[in-house]
């Protein structure tokens, strides 16, 4: 289970790509071209990257309003995502979904809900479908500490344990739900990890360490593939930017600047980059090349999005029902 150099470079690459995409969105957001609420993933990249590195194309993910990282890490096409943020017909959801409703069927992303907790049972149901069809597929559900307030998490976990479903629950505890700290909403300093160990593999880990995330998820996914049932992984992390929109739009005063600063210093991307450099797994040249490639991809994706056609009034009544 120890990672090859190749795999480590892959992890870093995924994290970098997510980070740069988020930064670009952030910096262009005030232009008002992306007329959709964005929830940026900066600071949490290690989680989506580590988790998705353990998955196959046909494995499923389900996520939430803060889904750009999950979408990209699972193999999502950046052009289709950016076009969606620009509300174009070429977007992954053809401009009907916007930033909070990404989809990518080819990579097992069956659609994203912006109702907090809403995706948890849906991801559980995907696990049920895989089990009933005896498919060797795993379903991963990403959700925040806010979603862990919702009873549907417990109902879903209970069901997954009862049926030994191939589902991995990944809770990203970034300490906040909008302006509410986790501890003003939950009764303990870690969310309950439900079930006896034989029924639920559960772990609380540093979500800013991509290799730890990878390794923990790897075990969980193995378990799921062997029919041993669900797992629950709580990843501690931090959302560096505001809840939604860009920095300039974040209300002031609800977070201690020192807290933000401390977490900025624990930036998962910088830390992992430094680690791989010190391990000799990547060097400055390779990094520069990766950055250049990513930049080119982002430029192309933004250009694609901007040039793409907008849906028109004539499209409005499409797709209410599936034939």
């Amino acid at each position, binding site marked *: 289970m120890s990672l090859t150099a190749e795999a480590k470079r892959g992890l870093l690459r995924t994290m970098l790509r997510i980070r740069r995409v988020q930064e670009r969105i952030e910096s262009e957001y005030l232009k008002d071209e992306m007329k959709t609420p964005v929830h940026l993933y900066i600071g949490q990249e290690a989680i989506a990257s580590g988790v998705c590195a353990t998955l196959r194309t046909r494995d499923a993910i389900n996520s939430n309003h803060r889904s750009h990282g999950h979408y990209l890490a699972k193999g999502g096409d950046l052009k289709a995502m950016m076009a969606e943020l620009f509300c174009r017909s070429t977007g992954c959801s*053809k401009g009907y979904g916007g930033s909070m409703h990404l*989809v990518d069927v080819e990579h097992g992303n069956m659609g994203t*809900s912006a109702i907090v907790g*809403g995706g*948890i049972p849906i991801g559980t149901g995907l696990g049920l*479908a895989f089990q009933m069809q005896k498919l060797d597929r795993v379903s991963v559900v990403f959700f925040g500490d806010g979603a862990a307030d919702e009873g549907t998490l417990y109902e879903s976990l209970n069901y997954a344990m009862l049926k030994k479903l191939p589902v991995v629950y990944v809770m990203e505890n970034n300490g906040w739900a909008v302006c509410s700290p986790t501890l003003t909403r939950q009764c303990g300093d870690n969310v309950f990890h439900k079930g006896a160990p034989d029924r639920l593999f559960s772990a609380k880990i540093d979500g800013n360490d991509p290799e730890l995330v990878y390794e923990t998820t790897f075990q969980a996914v193995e378990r799921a593939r062997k029919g041993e049932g669900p797992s629950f992984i709580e990843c501690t992390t931090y959302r560096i930017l505001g809840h939604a929109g860009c920095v300039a739009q974040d209300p002031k005063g609800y977070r201690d600047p020192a807290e933000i600063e401390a977490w900025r210093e624990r930036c998962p991307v910088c830390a992992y980059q430094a680690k791989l450099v010190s391990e000799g797994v990547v060097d400055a040249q390779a990094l520069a090349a990766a950055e250049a490639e990513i930049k080119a991809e982002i430029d192309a994706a933004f250009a694609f999005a901007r040039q793409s056609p907008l849906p028109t009034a004539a499209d409005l009544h499409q797709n209410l*029902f599936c034939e």
Partner: protein
Amino acid sequence: MPWSRIKPDTNEPEYLSQDMHGSATHAAVTSEPFLQHSPGIRRISYAEATNEALSQALSLDPRVFVMGQGVDDPSGMFGATRNLHLTYGRERVFDTPLAETALSGIAVGAALGGMRPVYFHNRPDFLLLAMDQLVNHAAKWHYMFGGAVSVPLVFWACVGRGWGSAAQHSQALQGLFMHVPGLKLIMPSTCFDAKGLMLSAIKDNNPVLIIDHRMNFKQRGIVPEEPYTVPIGKGVIRRNGRDVTVVAVSHLVTEAFVAAQELAGEGIEAEVIDPRTLRPLDEELILESVARTGRLVVCDTGWKTGGVTAEIAAMVAEKGFGSLKAPIARVANPDLPTPAGYTLEQAYYIGKDDIRRAIIRTVRGQEA
């Protein structure tokens, strides 16, 4: 349960035969145009018709499964699911925890994962725990992702009534669900339709909600053995008449039909329409009838304000106004929670006599 003493087995009225036309299923078993009076015709109960549809769907399509609290228990959802687990196994016909919120989402997820769940809730009252998944998720999923994904699932619930079921166990909530774009809503009234519409719902690639009614469950009607579908979105005329159009939902079709038969003796000929599907609604059928009769009475098992009768009345006031010769009448339950006591229940529930009075008022311009 003392239900049998409230409503014993009865045969369905002899409706116009045209309602018996089904269409071919995905299993391609086309039935001959079906004749009500053919010899050797089979009469089965409404519960049996539903049960047969489920059984046939389970046997024809490996993706179909049946879930819900008590689907595998001895009462088998008032008979609708009875013994299916014995034939198809508990892997495909299974009980669930009492966690309607998550299980509804699990059904959505299973549908996205390639299955065709049929989720039984024994009463619509419990669907209120499933609203987030039904309305925010299932009904929007296809549209919200530009058509990339679809959610073929069936939710089913059966309206309770009588024996003090009271406020939380007897709500006919179709008025809520009729408002939700992206959801198809079916309320059959005959055994034939119960089977054919269940098969259509399962075959449909969208979320479909079927609301049945306990008052229908013990009625017996003519039902072909082979699988067939009844088209979603098509109503039928249950009785022809020139004086007034009566649109009635679910078990009120029988009540309206009996009222109409009685009134024929008094010189009023009421046309009785069974919309069968509330969403999409067969607006043409209703408008075309009102164009002939000029009068409309709408009857629903739910509450009056903001419910099914409101939509049908408003639709005609908007699109069929020119034909109307009299105020539209709405016959629906009063705007109250259902009371428990039987004397209050008697005052609460509407039926044949209320419909009769509304017809007379609409046709003659005054109370009976």
